């Protein structure tokens, strides 16, 4: 990145991201209270995103099969933030470390598939994934020195790893 580009890229507004986290925490804490679930809410800022994690909840009601409840709850939480700030939120929600574990798994998959594609010289398509999951795979493939693209329409959008 050149110096000019660096100055053009706006620095993340940490204060605004922290405020996003606070609004999200209120919304989620209210839900935990009503559902009579134990659990704490951790807040963090990672790069240009607010990260909010619900930790210490028993059961998987808030994650759901393949994380679908987690994705839905993240969507609603972003809307709750948007209503209060007027700004579109890119906040990331995690429950019980689900995303962290999924990230580790998908990084491994991305790396393995990149290895396959390097050997075969043929593009390879993966199964449909959420935007978060695709991003992790794209990053892992890029780290292995190959390119990948997303194809298809949500919710069946999938990653294709391309040969060099």
């Amino acid at each position, binding site marked *: 990145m050149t110096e000019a580009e660096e100055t053009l890229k706006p620095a993340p507004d940490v204060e605004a991201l922290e405020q996003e986290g606070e609004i999200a925490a209120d*919304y989620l804490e*209210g*839900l935990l209270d*009503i*559902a*009579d679930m134990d659990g704490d809410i951790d807040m963090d800022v990672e790069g240009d995103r607010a990260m909010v994690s619900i930790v210490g909840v028993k059961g998987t*009601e*808030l994650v*759901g099969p393949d994380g*679908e*409840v987690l*994705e*839905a*709850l993240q*969507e*609603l939480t972003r*809307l*709750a933030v948007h*209503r209060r700030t007027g700004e579109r939120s890119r906040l990331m929600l995690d429950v019980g470390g689900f995303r962290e574990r999924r990230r580790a798994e998908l990084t491994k998959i991305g790396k393995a598939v990149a290895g396959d594609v390097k050997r075969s010289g043929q593009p390879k398509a993966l199964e449909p994934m959420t935007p978060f999951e695709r991003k992790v795979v794209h990053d892992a493939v890029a780290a292995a020195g190959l390119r990948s693209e997303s194809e298809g329409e949500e919710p069946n959008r999938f990653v294709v790893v391309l040969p060099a």
Partner: protein
Amino acid sequence: MLEEALEHLVKGIVEHPDDVRVRARRIRTGRVLEVRVHPEDLGKVIGRGGRTAKALRTVVNGLSQGRYVRIDLVDLDTA
């Protein structure tokens, strides 16, 4: 608990939270939660392509421990 959870989730995303009403009804296949919102908020709780309505249904069904819950979204003016 589900009515209350749904009411909280909806109130947090609309412009007129005081107008949100949730009523539970029993049907043969399970339960229906009927959500009434201010007419200006109906579009908001449905979302683009029904995205927000789907998210509300997914979260409530996640909390319902396997029992089927239907969610109807209507505006306050609907009788």
